[in-house]
């Protein structure tokens, strides 16, 4: 992932160099006119791999509007996004959760919402689990599906995320668990691996991004999402805020940003990128403030 982004960085550099040569003799781009000022330079974003695909798409559209601006997106997890923003090696950090109180030195700019759904194989007859049952299953106190109403007589395979992943953070925080208390049978890395594990094992229980799960169900894979507190996970319940196990995707900055980064932040929170957010199976923030500069 990192390798790709370095290649991208180099190729972007070359493109930027060529573009400079071209724009020198071409007339100024139309978007710059509407801004009044001409934006230029590099914006470096690093952080969460959940936010990165969305940021890349946003960056492409932003570059179309401002041909002298290059947006460079690198992944490495929310923790890296925070660290890079603090030490200045990134202009903007991507963080797939809300900021913690001790991270008050940074400013969060919410761009979208993402929910985490508990997933089962579609052959599993269990229709709902209470939060207490989820906790018991993940703590290894409930080990048989037959202990759950409507469950088959087979042992439960608990699928957990690897340490450091933000999905794990959100899950642990919501159910008030510690990672060392969890008795898992399988530990996975990304969402796709989690989905493959559950679709290949009718007795498995796991949790992944709602976007990723909806995508996989849409492809006809044998997967289902469980409702939580009576609310079924979907784009709609995420948007109206009723689904409890959700997170906000943020761009974070420290102190005052450069004008270019400032413009990108406004752009990322504007209705112009709503279709990109939906394409990535995320949900736009309802009360997204309109960027003052948008036409």
């Amino acid at each position, binding site marked *: 992932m990192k390798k790709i982004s370095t290649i991208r960085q180099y190729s972007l550099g070359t493109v930027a160099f060529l573009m400079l040569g071209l724009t020198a003799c071409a007339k100024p781009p139309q978007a710059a006119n509407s801004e009044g000022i001409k934006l230029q330079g590099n914006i470096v974003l690093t952080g969460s791999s959940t936010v990165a695909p969305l940021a890349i798409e946003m960056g492409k559209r932003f570059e179309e509007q401002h041909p002298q601006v290059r947006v460079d997106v690198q992944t490495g997890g929310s923790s890296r996004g925070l*660290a890079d923003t603090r030490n200045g090696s990134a202009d903007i950090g991507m963080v797939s959760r809300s900021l913690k109180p001790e991270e008050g030195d940074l400013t969060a700019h919410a761009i979208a919402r993402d929910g985490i759904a508990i997933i089962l194989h579609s052959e599993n007859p269990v229709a709902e689990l209470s939060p207490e049952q989820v906790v018991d299953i993940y703590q290894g106190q409930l080990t048989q599906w037959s202990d759950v109403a409507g469950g088959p007589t*087979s042992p439960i395979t608990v699928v957990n995320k690897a340490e450091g992943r933000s999905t794990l953070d959100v899950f642990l925080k919501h159910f008030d668990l*510690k990672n060392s208390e969890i008795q898992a049978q*399988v*530990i996975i890395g990304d969402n796709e691996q989690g989905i*493959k594990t559950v679709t*290949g*094992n009718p007795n498995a229980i796991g949790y992944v991004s709602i976007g990723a799960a909806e995508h996989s169900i849409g492809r006809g894979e044998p997967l289902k999402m469980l409702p939580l507190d009576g609310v079924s996970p979907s784009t709609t319940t995420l948007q109206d805020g009723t689904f409890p196990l959700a997170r906000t995707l943020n761009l974070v900055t420290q102190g005052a940003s450069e004008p270019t980064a400032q413009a990108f932040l406004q752009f990322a929170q504007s209705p112009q990128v709503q279709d990109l957010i939906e394409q990535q199976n995320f949900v736009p923030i309802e009360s997204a403030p309109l960027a003052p500069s948008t036409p």
Partner: protein
Amino acid sequence: MQTFEMSQLSSLRRAHRRDRILRHSLRLLGSITGLLVLLITLFVLQEAWPALQNLGFIRFWTDGSWHPLEGSFGLMPMVLGSGLIALGATAIATPLGLLSALFCQCYGPPLLVVPYRRLLELLAGIPSVVYGFWGLVVLVPQINRLHPPGQSLLAGTLILSLMILPTVALLAIASLAQIPSSYWQGAAALSLSRWTTLTRIILPSARSGLFTAVVLATGRALGETMAVLMVCGNVVQVPSSVFDPVRSLTANIALEMAYATGDHRAVLFVSGLVLLAIVAGLVVMAEGISNQGMSSESVIVHER
């Protein structure tokens, strides 16, 4: 006549010069390779140093569990996991690989041997993530039916043995091919049976090459990451049966490195350092064995 000698002399000189250039460039390339290994080791050591200094080397072996964000850093289950997976895979792949090599070199008709060798080469060329994916969607569900959860030491061992089988087989074929044909002819002249020829002459003289093949394959098994990560379940624990999930050192690094910062990152480099040490130990072992083989071979030569 004189001109002939002159041209001969100058061409000799030219050849000497070319030799010198070749020798120096080979030395340069060789030392770059050596230097790279040294630099990588130093880099890993440097990155791991803060953790070694803050926590001490002992804690990695005495801590009960691996929860780096909660301050416990037990590497032992993962060293054991890596070792068990690699040893299991070697145990399965060695007999299969050696038999494949003997079939190719000594028994099989050329019509079968050529496609069979191509097949082995193809097996060696398949990317590990493909093996892992196949393991996850085909092998793991089958094992799950036998004994849940499916992701297990057994799955990892089976996939890895498939992956290192071509390494063992192809290296063994190469070392069998190095046996001088006079050995075969001598055996035939003495009208020894094929079995006697194999067990008394061919296998003993190829011994060092065969050992090296096995050791290199074990090294490859230890270093394999993607396939192991996908089929082993990655739970940090000492397995009590082959159906229990385990985590290898390589999977540990791959799973957590992208998201790790500070001390967590440093302890991952410590697991890299441990892996490096194990592989280095294996290489030294292989070197020792092949040296031993060399000296016994030279004895044969002297006796001749």
